[in-house]
């Protein structure tokens, strides 16, 4: 089999500890904390009050502005608090609604649609009403992404799952191929595209073979080399279509829309079952938890509850651990365990810190060779630390996708990504408004 790929990248230990664990339905949490910013763009506006009874699937946040999304109650219960809480992901305080569960689910569903007969506009509206956002991590509102302002001829489903440890997309592809396919058919109809690919890394050979057999003639299965960051949007498009998204551009600039596997399932559930996005599949993994697995978990469930109830608590022998939202390459460490699950959380990885020595950069050039964006991470790091932001921008500061390949491979343990992230923030602030 010919494996497609991109230039650069690294191959960290895959550690797919949970790849054979079936996705299980988690019990309902007693309490959920639902952030109003569960999507890229403007936060939603709270439309419930403290003391109000809400049903599962009831709207509790309405979008503000064109790039925003609906937020729904993940449980049936009572609103006990509406306040701003600090969010590790956003780095700022974000409005959140706390709901205490009073019983089993009483659903408030959207109308169920027959997608073969309704219009494209009705489908997009339904997806918007269901609060669907990109579940791969970026949480971009799906109804916006499915209405591109440029002509698109190709839909790529991202099943690469190149982050070590995470396995939820893998399990979804194995266990839910029918729902997945229906989601893809709906998306295909909305976009009006002919070409549909699903890109899967070769370490999920069973999923590749399974989908090739089941989807013969419907979706092209692209087997990808197991290499990080194979699932990064631009690298995935390059590997499958050979097209290069221009610097500062979007996939639609080269006629492509990329959607995550789990998002397709959410689209199917929104359209066919009328179910808003109140639950998602996620992987709970890492050496730091006792029980590792793949779970359906309600949005807003506190991480402490997930680790205690689903993970059987922290593993013995660790006094210090990193609890990451996401995988180990790009995951964000949470500063406290009250942090709730977001729509974009495909996993929680609990791992110990690796102790490593640092030296000056020895110019080994490993970072230059692994950078999937063909940047010079050593130089960006140097310029960032010297506060030469304009020079850094000229050689591609803003093109960095923060995948961490450079920092992963660095024998001197230089923190390229850390200084690049900071430099991007400073540069955007200093040059705000000016292109």
């Amino acid at each position, binding site marked *: 089999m010919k494996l497609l790929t991109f230039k650069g990248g690294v191959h960290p230990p895959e550690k797919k500890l949970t790849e054979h664990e079936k996705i299980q339905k988690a019990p309902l949490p007693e309490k959920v904390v639902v952030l109003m910013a569960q999507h890229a763009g403007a936060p939603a506006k709270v439309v419930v009050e403290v003391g109000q009874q809400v049903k599962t699937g009831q709207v509790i946040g309405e979008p503000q502005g064109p790039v925003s999304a609906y937020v729904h109650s993940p449980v049936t219960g009572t609103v006990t608090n509406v306040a701003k809480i600090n969010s590790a992901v956003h780095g700022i305080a974000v409005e959140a609604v706390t709901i205490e569960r009073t019983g089993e689910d009483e659903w408030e569903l959207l109308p169920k649609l027959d997608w073969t007969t309704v219009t494209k506009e009705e489908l997009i509206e339904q997806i918007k009403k269901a609060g669907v956002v990109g579940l791969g991590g970026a949480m971009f509102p799906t109804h916006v992404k499915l209405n591109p302002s440029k002509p698109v001829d190709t839909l790529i489903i991202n099943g690469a799952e190149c982050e070590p440890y995470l396995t939820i997309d893998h399990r979804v592809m194995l266990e839910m191929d029918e729902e997945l396919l229906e989601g893809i058919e709906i998306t295909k109809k909305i976009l009006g595209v002919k070409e549909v690919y699903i890109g899967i890394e070769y370490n999920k050979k069973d999923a590749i073979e399974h989908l090739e057999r089941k989807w013969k003639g419907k979706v092209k299965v692209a087997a990808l080399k197991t290499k990080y960051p194979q699932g990064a949007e631009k690298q995935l498009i390059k590997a499958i279509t050979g097209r290069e998204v221009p610097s500062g551009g979007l996939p639609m600039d080269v006629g492509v829309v990329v959607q995550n596997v789990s998002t397709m399932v959410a689209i199917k559930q929104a359209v066919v079952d009328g179910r808003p996005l109140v639950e998602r599949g996620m992987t709970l993994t890492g050496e730091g938890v006792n029980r590792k697995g793949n779970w359906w978990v309600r949005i807003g469930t506190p991480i402490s509850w997930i680790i205690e109830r689903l993970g059987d608590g922290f593993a013995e022998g660790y006094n210090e651990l990193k609890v990451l939202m996401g995988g180990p390459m790009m995951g964000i460490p949470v500063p*406290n365990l009250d942090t709730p699950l977001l729509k974009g959380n495909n996993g929680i990885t609990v791992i110990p810190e690796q102790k490593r020595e640092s030296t000056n950069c020895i110019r080994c050039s490993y970072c230059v060779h692994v950078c999937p964006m063909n940047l010079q991470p050593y130089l960006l790091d140097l310029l960032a630390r010297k506060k030469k932001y304009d020079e850094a921008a000229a050689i591609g500061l803003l093109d960095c996708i923060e995948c961490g390949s450079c920092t992963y491979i660095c024998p001197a343990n230089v923190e390229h990504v850390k200084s690049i992230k900071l430099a991007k923030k400073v540069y955007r602030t200093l040059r705000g408004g000016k292109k």
Partner: protein
Amino acid sequence: MKNVKLLITSAPHVRTQDSTRKIMIDVLIALTPATIAATFFFGLYALVLSILGMISAELIEFFIMRVLRKDKNFVPNGSAAVTGLLLALNVSVATPWWVLLIGVVFAIAIVKHAFGGLGQNIFNPALAARVFLLVSFPTFMTTWYKPIASFGGWYTDAQTTATPLAILKLQGFSKVMESTNYLDLAFGNVGGCIGETSAILLFIGFLYLVFRGRIKIVIPATYIGSVLLIASIFYTINPERFGSPIFHVLAGGLMLGALFMATDMVTSPMTLKGQAIFGLGCGVVTMLIRYFGGYPEGVSLSILLMNALVPIIDRHTQPRVFGRRKA
């Protein structure tokens, strides 16, 4: 639930278990065959010089970092040992131990740490120190002994000789081939610096670095390639004066220079294109000095010259950023 302290660190949260020290140890391993060859051809004193070079370099660096630069956390990483060994391999067996020591101090204190230490130096410390010794102690540095070619001997009973490149310069290529042959040149049974003579054992060490992914492989390819090309052209013009291409690759410090000195990570370019330009420049300058310069050998000077050009090369060989037009 048991409580743990939550760590907040910057992504990525997994890293390779690679380190600067592991790279340096790999280079030392790669230099071992050449060091054994040095001991075989030039006697136990060559081994003494090699070990002295490594240990003294590490001690001097330790002193500089802990005492002068007040870095309490400094742990030796092996980079100084690499410099010390390379310098030792780059001197004649006629060099007294204290001359080598002066060279090591110059390499570590001036060439490396005066420029900022590990990763910051412009010039290859071992090469700069070699040239420093060459101008300061020309007698020691240009007295060559005939190899004794047996383990266990000291060096003093050996006869002096001239290096093949010096013979070429003064007497012509036919005289070179009267005094030696390609086999001796390849294995190192000729006069010269203790670590430079055995092309084959140097190459074996180099293969180890390639296997370990530790080397900017384009540099030796373009360096040796350009030497072969230039020597072929000149050989057709005047074989007696210029010598054969194979001879130029095997003789003198070319293999040591191209495989281990020009490829020094710190002092060579970062992109493949830059490395090609760098290797090519080394080859051209080496041959210019060998053919037309005052010295019979030009490897050290050519690499040092190209070291100085690395910032310019890096600046003009920046890769095209993904999604951008040609820069």
